[in-house]
């Protein structure tokens, strides 16, 4: 970008941030995400306890000044485990989304650019993936690979992949018909260069929105998998698994499953609202489509 364009970019950025922060609920979501990331990075600043430490003389304590949300069946502090669980959720969200976005975009780009049999094969493959409910395919993949953070990331990544593939495919087939692509080609640009310089930048607004929203979806899926027992392996603190463990003591200690569930909802809500806000700010035409 040359110097002349800079003021324009600045104005554009200011407009985007103004639209973005207009809605109070978007601002709320933004603050929640900032807190969430801070919690995931520095959990030890927010709680004096160790999330793994079992105190068998203090099991199933009700909420008190010492244990804000009480303790679980083997005497671990619930509040501390929720705080540390943020890290598990953030890691799953970031890596699963990154995995899905990078592979999905590459696939969509190839399918759209080369078309033909390659394109058909790739797109029909994503159609086939989309015949399965996402949580179900994640359940099967994660269940077969075995529980654990890495496998959960892979499983959720696969379920998120088709959306990126389709987005890139749709963008590529429109962009590639443009005259400036022809011009670039006549100047001797390689396929790779055309894809990276002309096709990719056109997809950024919807992509950023999709990535933000998928962070929430991934966190929600991870919670579901951990709830079913094929997600995060204990004792690593994970919100979904905490809901499941707490379910056993629902009658006497509802807070054990209520509190982590609220944390899931709050964070997923925040990502969705920020995604909404970004969509309105970056590309209002997408309203109702993503």
């Amino acid at each position, binding site marked *: 970008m040359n110097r002349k364009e800079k003021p324009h970019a600045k104005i554009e950025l200011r407009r985007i941030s103004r639209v973005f922060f207009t809605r109070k609920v978007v601002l709320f979501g933004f603050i929640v995400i900032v807190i969430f990331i801070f919690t995931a990075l520095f959990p030890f600043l927010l709680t004096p306890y160790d999330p793994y430490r079992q105190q068998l003389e203090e099991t199933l304590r009700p909420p008190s000044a010492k244990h804000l949300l009480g303790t679980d069946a083997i005497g671990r502090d619930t509040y501390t485990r929720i705080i540390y669980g943020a890290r598990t959720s953030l890691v799953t969200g970031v890596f699963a989304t990154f995995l899905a976005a990078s592979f999905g975009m590459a696939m969509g780009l190839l399918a759209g650019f080369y078309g033909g049999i390659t394109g058909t094969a790739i797109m029909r493959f994503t159609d086939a993936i989309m015949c*399965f409910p996402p949580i179900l395919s994640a*359940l099967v993949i994660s*269940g077969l690979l075995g529980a654990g953070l890495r496998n959960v990331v892979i499983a959720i990544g696969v379920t998120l992949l088709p959306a990126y593939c389709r987005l890139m495919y749709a963008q590529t087939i429109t962009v590639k018909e443009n005259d400036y692509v022809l011009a670039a080609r006549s100047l001797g640009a390689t396929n790779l260069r055309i894809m990276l310089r002309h096709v990719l930048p056109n997809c950024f607004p919807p992509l950023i929105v999709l990535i933000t929203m998928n962070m929430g979806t991934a966190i929600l899926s991870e919670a579901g998998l951990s709830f*079913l027992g094929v997600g995060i392996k204990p004792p690593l603190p994970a919100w979904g698994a905490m809901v*499941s463990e707490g379910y056993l003591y629902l009658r006497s200690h509802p807070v054990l499953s209520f509190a982590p569930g609220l944390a899931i909802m709050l964070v997923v809500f925040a990502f969705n609202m920020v995604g909404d806000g970004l969509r309105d700010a970056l590309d209002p035409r997408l309203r109702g489509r993503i």
Partner: protein
Amino acid sequence: MTGYIVRRLIQAFFILILVTLLIFFIMRILPGDPIYMYLTMMEAQRISEKDLMALKKQFGLDKPMIIQYVNWIRGLTHGDMGTSILNRDSVGKEIKKRLPRTAYLGLLALIISAAVGIPAGIISATRRATWLDNLVTTIANCGITVPIFWLGIVFIYIFGLYLKWLPVQGYTSPFDNFWLSLKQAILPVLCLATMPTAGIMRQTRSSTLEVLRQDYVRTAWAKGLREPAIIRVHVLKNALIPVVTLIGLTVRVVFGGSVLVETVFNIPGIGRMTVEGILSQDYPVVQGALLIISITVLLANLLVDLSYGWLDPRVKYE
């Protein structure tokens, strides 16, 4: 139109073949051997190599993968979905028993989500930026983000344990005991309907807003038509096209939800069956469940595509 239907059916058939390939090979490429799972339950150490081979042979697991696939498909065409490795029940029979339960709850959830979501979305769009719109939007935004398994647990606590209005768990067929069945269905159906309702509300709201901006709606106002007539005649039909697509996709969401909801409420449906199959690495059970679910989803999508022509004559069947 006929040509389009035929083409669409052929396309669906190819996707179906891809789906079976995907199911079959993913189940085999990923690690885990069902025979060992079976053996740990029957004292794995004591079994000899010969018996192991015999067992593998019995379940057809000794043959090359391609042959196993062909055998599976051949069985399917005869209505044989294989036998469960764990308890040796016929998978087809088990699915026949369980699918109606999931379908019953899922259909109720679908009906509720359309019946609540569409009117709420329209009200919210026509009363934009009022307290009513804010309320609907907030509820919808919460609905698409709430973890439904957690919502189920909260419902169980409030309505089952605290207020004692509804039974906590289980499933009864409506033909055996209608009232008990209805009472048991309320909470799971509410959970299943939450996300679709919210999704339909949001989609209806945004597409209605889109249509309300069109010139022909302004013309209708200028002609002096009343609001209900404008909404019914001019807005609804156009605004509902994307909503119908979403309802088609919702079948997938409801099946996905049933995996979680059936676990929370202890309902012996097809979702629970898949979870149990995965946890015990029972290949035929998981394969069968995945196949039935994906076929249903595929059919729902097909139905939606075909309904476009009826809803929107502009859609050209290319």
